[in-house]
């Protein structure tokens, strides 16, 4: 009887001890496994973030290179198509001089040469300007618009009033496109509007950039027809690029107002 009881105790100790041991071992293994998994997951997450940052950096670098490449291509096209053809015309005109003897014809050729040379000078200026919008690059949009207005006011052909109120630092492409839009609008006013006064108002409100461009020129009878013109197509394309909206209002003798709204 005593022997049986002793045997039972031994077995009880054995079973309890073994169970405890197995429980301990299981806990250790489980802990190591779970902790290792957690560590690896964390490492993988960090890796993913690092990869993402690297990708973003590469993307920015590519975008910068693509932007530069595009600008160079545009300049090259401009040089070839515009300035190149003008120089060819100049060459042709100068070649015809020895063949002409009468003063009237010579005068006519000289006049043509002068005209083409003026155009070539203007084209050169424009190309140079597109390569270097230095005021815009160094001092921002407000300074660039003020500089543009200053240059126009100095010509005494038109009085330009500028009001720029921007607190947010604009991204490079937004500033550049906006500046080009204003340049184009100024060109149109100078070419067609016969305006005496020009107001350029750039302000920022509720995450939007508003440009109000108005002149007191002759205005237009049909805005839609004007909108189909090449100059405005460029403006519209730039506004669309910035995901903005453009509205034009005009009437004969009432000048022209252009309102542009761009989300920031």
């Amino acid at each position, binding site marked *: 009887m005593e022997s049986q009881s*002793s*045997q039972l105790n*031994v*077995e009880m*100790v*054995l*079973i309890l*001890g*073994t169970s405890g*041991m*197995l429980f*301990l*071992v299981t806990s*250790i*293994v489980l802990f*190591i*496994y779970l*902790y*290792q*998994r957690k560590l*690896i997951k964390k*490492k*993988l997450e960090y890796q993913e973030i690092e990869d993402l940052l690297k990708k973003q950096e590469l993307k920015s670098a590519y975008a910068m290179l693509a932007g530069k490449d595009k600008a160079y291509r545009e300049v090259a096209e401009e040089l070839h198509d515009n300035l190149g053809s003008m120089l060819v015309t100049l060459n042709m005109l100068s070649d015809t001089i020895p063949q002409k003897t009468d003063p009237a014809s010579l005068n006519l050729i000289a006049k043509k040469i002068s005209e083409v040379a003026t155009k070539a000078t203007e084209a050169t200026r424009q190309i140079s300007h597109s390569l270097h919008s230095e005021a815009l690059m160094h001092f921002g949009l407000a300074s660039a618009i003020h500089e543009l207005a200053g240059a126009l006011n100095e010509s005494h052909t038109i009085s330009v009033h500028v009001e720029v109120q921007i607190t947010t630092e604009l991204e490079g492409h937004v500033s550049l496109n906006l500046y080009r839009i204003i340049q184009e609008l100024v060109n149109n006013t100078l070419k067609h509007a016969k305006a005496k006064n020009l107001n350029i108002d750039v302000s920022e409100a509720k995450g939007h950039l508003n440009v109000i461009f108005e002149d007191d020129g002759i205005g237009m009878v049909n805005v839609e027809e004007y909108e189909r013109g090449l100059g405005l197509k460029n403006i519209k394309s730039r506004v669309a690029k910035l995901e903005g909206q453009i509205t034009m209002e005009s009437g004969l003798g009432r000048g022209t107002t252009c309102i542009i709204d761009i989300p920031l």
Partner: protein
Amino acid sequence: MTKLFLYGSISSPLIPLFIMGLMFRSFNFNLKVLSVIIGLSFLSDVGSFGYYHLTGHSTYWIVNTYNLLDTILVFFFFSRILNHRLVSYFMLGIILVMSGYYCYSVGVHVIWGEVLSMKNILVMGLCVLYFLQVFQSDTEIFLENTPLFWIVIGFIFYTAGSFFLWLMSSEIVNNPKYSMLIVHLGNILKNILFALGLWKARVVN
């Protein structure tokens, strides 16, 4: 029920041995050592079983001899997978000295319970050392995908399960009743885990 576990335990090494037979050539040296350990376990079980049924004599000398050889191979295996292999050799030395002492003092016809318990404790220590090593390494691998993880778990479960049995073997040796069930269960579990490890090695290869 007891017989079922006994036969299950004897035949359980066949599962890893079968996997081993499929791809023994593709295994690395460590896995080949493990295969020898499993093979030896199988031979020992079958040998003991056959010897007892044929002669009716005690098989403790087979158990002791097998455990001595198994100890050498197991510690050698751990010396291969651990960075601090000297620890493993030192532990092996302890067991060999203990075995020598027991062999001299009590002979081979008495089970060396204390030696086996000590061996189990030391193997558990080596398993924990292996986990520590994995823990401290910089390699980012999921443990469950590595063959060694399952193999070491097999070792640690078996040694933890049979530790108390060997420790108290002198008490229960005359009337084991259900106690041997634990060893059989541990052995089956160990061999299943070894098989899993070898299978994982096959997948890795």
